[in-house]
């Protein structure tokens, strides 16, 4: 009961945000955070069961690039393009996932195989630079001025805010649905002991594949949304090892075993980067004539230190850690750590 009131209050605040005079810039930040939160939530759906993928940059890039390429070259509306991109990334997830799960590739071997997948997709994008623009990035063509429902494009931030909010909410609902499903028990059992759970009749490969495909499809959708909103994608902004690591780390910081963990991770990491960028700037700070410091690297540096500290001192993330303090330990997530 109490929970419902809290959820309703938060929902009302989120829905009324554009009307209480939030500026264009903060609104932009919130939209970006919501889209990334959805991607992070998608990752944590499988990550919380010890399936640590470093290949989600690949799914995100597939989502963004396939949608934009179909729109520019074939003229196919994103309404059809996005489902195609999602299906394609689901297929890629099966191609990589099935043999991995069938042949028991787990732990950091799984992480490294998926890492190779991110690199494959990034290199393919760079190699086909004649169509995709390579490292220079790619822009979907504008379809008229202002709103275009056909192209899912908009100059209007408020409209996009509501779309992003809805997408994010759906992400949380999916996370909760997985959390309540039988699949969760199966996957936790698999994580604890793969052989034992197979012996009692858990379909190991099947269960793992299901959650992997769901996660890949969600991430591809986030990539497509990012592309539709930013109207610019490049291998470094939505793909490759950098983005794959960014996804994992934001979730670790926020908390991997809670529905809101990935969102909290997105808020903290993206706000931190933004605050540091504005606060310190990207100019060179010169101490003497010869020694100049490049402030653009500071966010990366602080981010790195934060991650190491989190993994050593607070492996359940901020949300998990706070909940432990509050309710006492052993309430959030299984005893094992990711």
């Amino acid at each position, binding site marked *: 009961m109490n929970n419902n009131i809290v959820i309703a209050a938060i929902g009302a605040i989120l829905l009324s945000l554009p009307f209480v005079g939030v500026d264009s810039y903060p609104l932009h930040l919130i939209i970006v955070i919501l889209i990334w939160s959805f991607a992070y939530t998608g990752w944590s759906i499988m990550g919380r069961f010890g399936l640590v993928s470093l290949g989600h940059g690949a799914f995100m890039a597939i989502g963004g690039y396939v949608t934009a390429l179909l729109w520019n070259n074939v003229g196919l509306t994103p309404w059809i393009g996005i489902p195609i991109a999602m299906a394609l990334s689901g297929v890629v997830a099966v191609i990589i996932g099935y043999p991995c799960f069938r*042949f028991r590739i787990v732990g950091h071997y799984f992480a490294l195989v998926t890492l190779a997948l991110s690199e494959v997709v990034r290199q*393919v994008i760079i190699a086909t630079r004649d169509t995709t623009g390579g490292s220079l990035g790619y822009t979907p063509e504008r379809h008229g001025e202002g709103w275009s429902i056909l192209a899912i494009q908009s100059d209007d931030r408020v409209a996009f805010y509501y779309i992003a909010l809805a997408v994010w909410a759906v992400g949380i609902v999916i996370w909760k649905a997985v959390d309540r499903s039988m699949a969760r028990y199966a996957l936790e059992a698999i994580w604890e002991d793969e052989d034992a759970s197979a012996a009692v009749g858990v379909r190991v490969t099947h269960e793992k594949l299901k959650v992997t495909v769901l996660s890949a499809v969600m991430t591809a959708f986030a990539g497509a949304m990012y592309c539709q909103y930013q109207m610019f994608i490049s291998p470094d902004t939505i793909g490759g090892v950098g983005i794959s690591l960014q996804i994992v780390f934001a979730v670790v910081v926020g908390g991997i075993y809670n529905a809101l963990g990935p969102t909290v991770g997105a808020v903290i990491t993206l706000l931190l980067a933004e605050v540091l960028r504005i606060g310190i700037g990207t100019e060179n700070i010169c101490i003497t004539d010869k020694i100049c410091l490049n402030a653009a690297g500071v966010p990366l540096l602080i*981010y*790195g230190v934060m991650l*190491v500290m989190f993994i050593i001192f607070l492996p359940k993330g901020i949300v998990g850690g706070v909940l432990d303090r509050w309710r006492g330990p052993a309430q959030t997530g299984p005893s094992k750590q990711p």
Partner: protein
Amino acid sequence: MAEFTDALFSIFFVETLINGLLLGGVLALLSLGLNLVFGVVDVVWICYAEIIMLGMYTIYFLHVDAGIPVIIAAGCGIAVTTILGLLVHRIVIHYLLDAAPINQLLATGGLLFFLQGSAMVAFGIEFRNLGVSLGSLIVSEDIYLSWTRILCFVLAAGSVGVLYVFLSRSYLGAAIRAISQDREIMPLMGVDTKKLYLLTSAIGGALAGLAAALLALQYDVHPFIGLSFGPITFMICVMGGLGNMVGGFLAAFIFSELITIGGYFADLEWGYVLAFVVFIATMFVRPEGLFARKS
């Protein structure tokens, strides 16, 4: 088809194969230290390439700004990466020895961002070139081979040899091999595992420095150079069987030949795609690595 066979028997294809072999030397040297650390400490240093990057900066600044001869600068570079290797272990890994492997991997990933950020803050994002070239060996009118790469090849082969002899013949080497076989029993036998881990991390760091010295001769240094050869280094180690020194050495040549042959018939990027796809396929067939002994 005729074009394809022509291409196959052309003198340039021979050059490609030789260049692939020489690139393999570079990759083998890169993966050696990572492989050793993995085999003994059982931790994947995702930030290994960033340690190499800092070694390259050390050499660059000592040689270009301070005017110290390249050889001595390289020695200092190795010293710096050795210390970095020690610090990575003592400051981060030491506290995570009992944590899940994935947590260890993620912590070193955090270090990757930290080292990249530090390099960016301290040195900016310019590309810096050491400006030293060892020239090329002219085999025939059409074939030029870079001396740096030949040196890389020789040093990589030499380092593998030295490491092999060290591990199989010396007392310390025996202890290191024993600890990688059973890390619970060894402390009970009165072996100080902490010291051995530190020693291994230092050797791993020193090998990173050696790789840095040779890379500095061939590539420009910038804070993100680690990302361009970091992933491939892990894949080589995994393909050869993590911790298997000889396997990693051979896998480096498989990778380099795939990259150069792919680059010969299409773009270099397709060479990388080919190598990565072969890597993924290999993992499905032999998850413990190509050269792992059946246990």
